[in-house]
């Protein structure tokens, strides 16, 4: 399958995770020329673990030797983690920023911040309010153009975010509920048809937001140097791509305004996003 500019081939010792992926990614095209950029393999930790308490190991072009296996019921999560891993370790063309991205009017809003800040939930909610989802995990910044490319894989909702989005979205957009994962309870959401149809259309970044969930509503400007530091930390390949990454990131932080927003609930979050967007 192809997600944005990146093609993946997923292989598995078991049929179930591949069937789930085929269902959830049914609307996605094949890789350009049929050649994937990355391969992910889900394989049994031991030969007999294909059948006895099946344990899924994540393999592929790039691997983490210390990664613990997941139970087969979480095979879909293993596949998603495998795809993220290939991107995080292998992507060289784009500067990868750990961020959710939505677009409106041809301009991109980048939501970045620590895990648990609510990026995925916020991106899912914004996609129901007139924004195009470009991705909930990685922003792909092209050093050659300064444009952000979409990477709209399944939205990975965690814990309380699941119920928040489920209140607004039909059940057929959701994958299976995955309980007891290393990140708690996870449920994937299929991006809407518009997000998939437009995934080859990049957008110029217009605003960077650092959302924080669980605080009283507040907002402040973030200086270019603070954005620079936070985005180097939020990038998985800044060091690997060298000077191109430096050029791309310094240009981004000098030309795009940044705000930090705190919010106690999703209504406040959406309102603050809209206010910051209007004032950018």
């Amino acid at each position: 399958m192809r997600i944005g500019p990146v093609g993946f081939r997923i292989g598995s010792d078991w049929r179930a995770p591949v069937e789930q992926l085929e269902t959830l990614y049914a609307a996605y095209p094949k890789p350009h020329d049929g050649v994937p950029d990355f391969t992910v393999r889900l394989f049994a930790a031991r030969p007999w673990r294909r059948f006895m308490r099946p344990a899924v190991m994540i393999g592929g072009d790039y691997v983490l030797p210390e990664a613990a296996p997941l139970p087969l019921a979480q095979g879909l999560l293993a596949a998603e983690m495998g795809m993220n891993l290939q991107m995080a370790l292998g992507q060289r063309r784009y500067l990868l920023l750990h961020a959710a991205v939505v677009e409106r009017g041809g301009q991109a809003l980048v939501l970045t911040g620590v895990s648990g800040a609510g990026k995925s939930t916020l991106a899912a909610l914004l996609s129901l309010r007139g924004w195009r989802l470009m991705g909930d995990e990685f922003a792909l910044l092209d050093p050659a153009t300064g444009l952000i490319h979409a990477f709209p894989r399944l939205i990975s909702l965690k814990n309380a975010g699941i119920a928040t989005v489920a209140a607004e979205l039909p059940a057929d957009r959701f994958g299976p509920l995955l309980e007891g994962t290393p990140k708690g309870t996870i449920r994937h959401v299929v991006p809407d048809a518009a997000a998939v149809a437009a995934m080859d259309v990049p957008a110029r970044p217009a605003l960077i937001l650092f959302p924080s969930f669980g605080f009283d509503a507040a907002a402040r400007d973030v200086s270019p140097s603070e954005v620079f530091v936070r985005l180097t930390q939020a990038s998985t390949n800044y060091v690997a791509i060298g000077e191109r990454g430096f050029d791309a990131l310094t240009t981004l932080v000098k030309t795009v305004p940044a705000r930090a927003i705190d919010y106690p609930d999703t209504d406040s979050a959406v309102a603050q996003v809209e206010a910051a967007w209007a004032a950018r």
Partner: protein
Amino acid sequence: MEDAGGGIVYRMARPETLKIVHLDTFTAVYHRASGITHLVTAPAPEILATLGEAGLTRSALLARLATDYDLGDADAAALLARLDELVATGLVSTA
């Protein structure tokens, strides 16, 4: 104070090995030789600009910084400590 560097000439690393971008009160410096990004603040950018390619001795550097920049209450010892840090990172050389 004692100028421990004596007559040694300090130079900014060759310009083609550096990329310097002023962000705000901080300046980002990409060091091509090491691939490391440095985020520096006053007086480091001023020291780099003053040394330039021609280079200066420690005492000449202090004299030029005093006339060219308003570096507040920075004393000579602090300025020379920053210079030594720049040497340690490779952004300034004594060769």
